[in-house]
């Protein structure tokens, strides 16, 4: 017998389940199984990439200091000259930049105050001749002028020329259009890619296993620590030292090489004989440093032929003069090979022996970092380092960051199944904000800060690179971690199949129940009539 109330409630349950299935279950399932793709500012990044320096107009303040004569409008005259030179440069500039000339007393600050300590100052000195001098230990530009140059109104031009062609030669050469197609980082084949953290590994390799020690601590404290501090605004150097004992360095092979090569057998064979990779491999343990430079001082197991060292540098050690040959290994470091083997009795390598090596290695670090390519400016290392900061900020860091963001955008567009976590979108937004902040520093360097503005710009641009790299290499951006869209139905069919069968089967049965029930009632009435 059919209960109308039961029938109705059963049907209601079925319809409710179907509605839940269709309007909540399916959208929920679709939502939960869809790869999350956060929104990225795609158009902005693309436009930024197309014109990377669109919002950069670097301004470098320069102060004029004069004592003999007063030139109240000299800054304006020099400004006009430099602006003229900058605006009329052939092919234009890749990065807009300009000098901002001011007289020293304009700020009512005495030249002797700390304000001008790290500033670019042009010292004007009356003399019998016209010339220019740039001290190697400062940022001043000394311009000598005579009265004739004042009468002929040549002085502003002299100053402008001195600044453009000497003090800011690096920018002048590298920021022009076309110059960036060459090597911005100098000879990039020798130099490592710029990194704010570089580890220096100093090693002594002995081929015979005889005991040896070295006064490396004194040398480092006396020479290398000042060097590290000096270069710290550009790169933070960390150092470790070690002595490695070998049974056999195989340097005897060099004996056999003589006569087999037309020239420099030591160079031809050296890379095969000395396993540089062994030292490099060790450096893999320095996980935090992206870049590692090495200095390896090698003592052979037996004395090497003197002919191999015909061009080597004589070195004195404990009343004995012998030769060493040194080699620069691009992007690796410096290799020093000694002519003589170590004696069997314990030897201590003295400061006198190590000092020239450290001097030479310090110079090579400049080359390996990409600084000493600008040799015309190395007469003034302070200026070079400052310019290097600006060039690195723009070309190595800002440009690289924009490239990374563009790669991220392109990649996510080309791989529509790739997830874009929210963290990535946050990183991108943070990077873009930070970029604008850095550009602000470059464009308006007059903000009063205790720190040199270029140092801040470089430091923040290093952070920018890290943020962009973090966004690009986010570990959840793995396409393989997620089920491809086209396979979704197939993957979930074992779950969805039984649920669908039960739901729709139940609904159909419920709908059929009405007719079945009606039929049963009619049958029972006919039976009653027959009775």
């Amino acid at each position, binding site marked *: 017998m059919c209960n109308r109330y039961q029938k109705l409630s059963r049907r209601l349950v079925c319809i409710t389940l179907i509605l839940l299935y269709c309007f909540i279950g399916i959208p929920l399932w679709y939502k939960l199984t869809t790869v999350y793709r956060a929104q990225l500012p795609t158009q902005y990044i693309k436009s930024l990439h197309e014109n990377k320096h669109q919002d950069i107009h670097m301004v470098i303040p320069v102060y004029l200091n004069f004592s003999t004569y007063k030139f109240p409008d000299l800054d304006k005259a020099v400004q006009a000259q430099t602006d*003229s030179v900058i605006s*009329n440069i052939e092919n234009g500039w890749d990065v807009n930049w300009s000098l901002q000339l001011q007289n020293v007393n304009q700020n009512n600050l005495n030249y002797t105050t700390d304000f001008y300590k790290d500033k670019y100052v042009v010292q004007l000195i009356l003399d019998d*001749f*016209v*010339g220019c*001098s*740039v001290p*190697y*230990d400062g940022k001043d530009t000394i311009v000598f002028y005579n009265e004739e140059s004042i009468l002929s109104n040549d002085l502003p*031009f002299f100053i402008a*020329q001195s600044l453009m*062609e*000497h003090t800011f030669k690096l920018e002048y050469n590298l920021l022009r259009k076309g110059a960036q197609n060459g090597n911005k980082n100098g000879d990039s*084949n*020798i130099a490592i890619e710029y990194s704010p953290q570089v580890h220096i590994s100093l090693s002594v390799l002995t081929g015979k296993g005889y005991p040896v020690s070295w006064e490396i601590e004194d040398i480092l404290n*006396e*020479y290398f620590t000042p*060097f590290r*501090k*000096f270069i710290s605004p550009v790169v933070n150097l960390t150092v470790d030292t070690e002595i490695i004992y070998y049974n056999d360095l195989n340097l005897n092979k060099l004996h056999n090489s003589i006569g087999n090569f037309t*020239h420099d057998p030591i160079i031809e064979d050296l*890379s*095969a004989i000395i*396993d540089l*990779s062994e030292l*490099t*491999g060790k450096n*893999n*343990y320095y*996980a935090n440093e992206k870049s590692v430079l090495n200095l390896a001082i090698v003592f052979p197991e037996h004395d090497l032929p003197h002919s191999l060292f015909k*061009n080597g540098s004589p070195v004195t050690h404990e009343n004995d003069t012998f030769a060493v040959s*040194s*080699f620069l*290994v*691009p*992007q*690796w470091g410096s*290799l020093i090979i000694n002519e003589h083997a170590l004696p069997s009795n314990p030897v201590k390598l003295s400061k006198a022996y190590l000092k020239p090596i*450290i*001097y030479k290695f*310090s110079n090579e670090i*400049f*080359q390996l970092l990409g600084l000493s390519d600008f*040799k015309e400016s*190395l*007469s*003034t*290392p*302070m200026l070079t380092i400052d310019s290097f900061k600006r060039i690195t900020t723009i070309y190595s860091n800002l440009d690289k960051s924009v*490239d990374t963001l563009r*790669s991220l955008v*392109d990649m996510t567009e*080309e*791989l529509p199944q790739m997830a874009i976590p929210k963290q990535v979108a946050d990183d991108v937004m943070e990077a873009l904000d930070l970029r604008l902040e850095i550009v602000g520093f470059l464009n308006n360097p007059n903000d009063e800060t205790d720190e040199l503005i270029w140092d801040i710009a470089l430091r923040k641009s290093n952070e920018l690179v890290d943020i962009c790299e973090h966004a690009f*290499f986010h*570990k959840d*951006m*793995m*396409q*393989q971690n997620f089920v491809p869209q086209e396979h979704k139905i197939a993957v979930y069919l074992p779950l969805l199949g039984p649920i669908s069968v039960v739901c729709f089967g139940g609904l159909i049965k419920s709908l059929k129940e009405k007719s079945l029930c009606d039929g049963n009632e009619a049958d029972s009435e006919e039976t009653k009539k027959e009775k």
Partner: protein
Amino acid sequence: MANVLSMYRTVKRLGIPDSQIILMLSDDVSCNSRNLFPGAVFNNKDHMLDLYGESVEVDYRGYEVTVENFIRLLTDRWDEDHPKSKRLLTNENSNIFIYMTGHGGADFLKFQDAEEIASLDIANAFHQMYEKKRYNEIFFMIDTCQANTMYSKFYSPNILACGSSEFEESSYSHHSDVELGVAVIDRFTYYSLEFLENIKDKTSNLTMKDLFDYLTFDKVHSHTGVRTDLFKRNVSDVLITDFFGNVQEIIPDLSDSDGNNIKHGINDEEDYYIEKTVLDLAIEASGNSSDVLEENKTNTLVLKENDINKYLHNTIKSGHDAANSKGEGPITWWKTLASTTNGVIFTTLCFILYKFVIVTEPKN
């Protein structure tokens, strides 16, 4: 596994250090209870060379060898604490050689009998590498059934690919070791190695074309394939050592065939002199200047009248006049002067190509 270890030994012999090799091995053979020679792996029935004997540094083994880890390796998407030695730290100057072997089929290669990598997965990973400038050139080599399908989906530039067999074609083993009861090496790999054995040192002039020509149907018993349309260079110009060897450039100090005083390419005495002062300046700046070489203290680049007179009247005036009259300021005089005092030319330019080799062998 012998395929991979043989290739690993060959590239090491040609100078690629372990630090630049990522080796992924199922690593279930040497200590397998069915191995009659525990701890040893051979690629020839004569058992002359134990491939597993010494100096094998396996970076990923056993259950670490997964599709996900392989893709992470290529795209460098790891946790921050992932060791550097297990990461592919390449850049836009790096040449990468990738060798894969195992059981495969049309557009897939099995990993650990549990999962498989599709050709499109590798293609997409390569594209991500390309987007981030993580390689200069890739040489992709694969030895599996229907191997050529595995590189058919590649679409990123500068990839050279080579496979052992065509679509719907099997790859075959070279010979069986009766003692071990298994085939020890595959034909494609065997003859590749046979060719590479001809390279005795890193100065070899053999090219990729020579290698491809060597892998004939008579030897391999399947149709090897080469894909060059994504590769810029002609394969006949690509040296084997561009991918299989490592030639480390070394620049000598203070040596020159002409006897000039060259310091790493700096042949100007003044520059050498100037460079020496950098450390001195650092010491001075730190306040410890007692030991600074006295002669360097005078190093100030001063250009005075005697030096510039000959330029002054000719170039300054003309430049100045031009600047005043036309608004143009040709800067020539300092430049001219600089060019006479600085003959800084790098005579030895060397292009470093870091070779990274990924050798993977999913479980057979």
